């Protein structure tokens, strides 16, 4: 079997009308596709990524490589898999670091506020461009799960099945609070300069701290205990004032420092805000919000996930049931906290593969 090389492609379109009423023009979406679209275009699955993800979902170093590929849960031998970088992102899609055609300079804070709805509307344009009318499934975790829910309510006719994982109908105050700490860390960095730092030193320290806070919320008490304990990287040295002596300190600093190499601080601000604004019910009551959804839904949560606790997934299930949506729900027993959706791939594979087996496009 000849393996096709994976390449990131770019889809450009003229204009996107945003939820805020503003228009964004032009727009680029970076995307990757794996597998083959069948003749009647009924085997397409859209994978949607989380806060720090990108279009590179499968293949070497893909963020969900264990789930996407030949013989895997999202079997590229059967399905045509698409993943695009979100609007507002910094991995090839239009975002605050992109050039503003009006000024010829990067947008910075001139970039309009974007929402999860806008991200999904941009993805819809990509799907249309690829000639796909119905998606066999839309799947993703965390912020990806939010986009899955938004697809269900915005385009109920176009979605045959959906897999929202470790996600929520809307952020709780606790989730907004953690996001705000991240944003404040960025904005407190002297290099941030009201978002106007392109071409000069970037607010790397602020972004790194934001990422460190994020990483704490993605793990669980137990997974941190198992991974680091109270171990010292070298040994306790009371004379070395405030050096990263503990393993956990070193880990977080490493994670923060490596993040700034691939992520734009302004994108972090815009995307976390989009998550905080998100409300899958769009102001409707729980019994009306999901009316008209025709898809079969598989909702997954993880026991040790305290950032997106299982009760939030159960609210999704409840809304589905109240609207007569066929729904399966599983709370996977995992110790890895919110990160489980990226780590607990064996359990997910089992559930997703079997779920998709029973999904048929009409």
């Amino acid at each position, binding site marked *: 079997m000849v393996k096709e090389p994976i390449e990131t492609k770019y889809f450009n379109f003229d204009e996107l009308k945003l939820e805020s009423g503003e228009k964004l023009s032009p727009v680029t979406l970076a995307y990757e596709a794996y597998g083959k679209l069948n003749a009647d275009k009924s085997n397409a699955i859209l994978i949607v990524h989380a806060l720090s993800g990108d279009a590179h979902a499968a293949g070497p170093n893909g963020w969900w490589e264990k789930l996407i590929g030949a013989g895997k849960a999202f079997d590229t031998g059967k399905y045509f898999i698409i993943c695009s970088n979100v609007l507002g992102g910094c991995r090839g899609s239009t975002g605050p670091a992109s050039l503003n055609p009006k000024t010829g300079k990067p947008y910075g804070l001139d970039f309009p506020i974007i929402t999860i709805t806008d991200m999904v509307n941009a993805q819809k344009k990509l799907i249309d461009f690829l000639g796909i009318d119905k998606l066999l499934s839309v799947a993703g975790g965390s912020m990806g799960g939010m986009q899955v829910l938004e697809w269900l309510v915005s385009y109920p006719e176009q979605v045959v099945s959906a897999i929202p994982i470790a996600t929520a109908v809307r952020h709780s105050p606790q989730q907004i609070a953690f996001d705000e700490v991240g944003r404040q860390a960025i904005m407190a960095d002297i290099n941030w300069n009201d978002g106007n730092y392109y071409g000069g030193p970037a607010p790397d320290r602020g972004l790194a701290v934001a990422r460190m806070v994020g990483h704490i919320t993605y793990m669980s008490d137990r997974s941190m205990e198992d991974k680091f304990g109270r171990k010292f990287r070298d040994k306790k040295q009371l004379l070395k004032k405030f050096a990263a002596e503990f393993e956990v300190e070193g880990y977080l600093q490493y994670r923060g420092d490596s993040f700034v190499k691939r992520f734009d601080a302004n994108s972090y601000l815009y995307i976390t805000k989009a998550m905080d604004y998100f409300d899958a019910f769009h102001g409707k009551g729980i019994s009306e919000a999901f009316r008209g959804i025709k898809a079969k839904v*598989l909702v997954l949560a993880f026991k040790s996930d305290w950032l997106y606790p299982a009760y939030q997934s*159960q609210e999704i*299930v*409840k809304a589905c*049931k*109240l609207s007569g949506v*066929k*729904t*399966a*729900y*599983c*709370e*996977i*027993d995992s110790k890895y906290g919110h990160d489980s959706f990226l780590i607990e791939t064996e359990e997910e594979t*089992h*559930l997703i593969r*079997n*779920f998709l*087996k*029973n999904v048929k496009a009409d």
Partner: protein
Amino acid sequence: MSKLIEKEYKVIAEMVDQGATVLDLGCGHGDLLALLTREKNVKGQGIEIDQQAIYDCVAKGLSVFHGDIDTGLPEFGDRAFDYVILSQSMQQVKKPDTVLTEALRVGKKVIVSFPNFAHITARFQLGFSGKVPVNPSLPFEWYNTPNTHFLSFHDFIDYCRKRGIKIEKKTYLSEKNKVRVLPNLFGMVGIFLISQ
């Protein structure tokens, strides 16, 4: 699947109307729900606490919720289902009284099946051998049984009388056939169709 369970499912399927809405509490691996979907065209959902069992339900394409039926069914309105089924699960929950009350609230009718702790073999084992009964309807040892409540058909009928629950139909099974004579002595599994 054991012969006894197969027979039990057949009896339950006979009690359920075509195209009905069904909630299976403690649906296990989803065999009963799959059977009812296939043969009675029901719109079914299940609730099950065991993760591996949920996997099997998902593989069967069923609508299932991974959760505990002991905490009640607050997400469902009154009389939301034509039938609520407790197949071999009532005697396993912590609070059968609460679970039955909830089942009777969300279901127009409830189907309950459970093993008879007063079956003749059980009486002999307890009475003469002085040992906790193990038989085809009570196949577990004391240290690994999922059952936490032990009752006879008479106990259940008494309970329904006390609670003002109407028993619309009842069927008793032994390994070989339906039991019509002295069911509390010869019946291994009882299946009751009840309503409030």
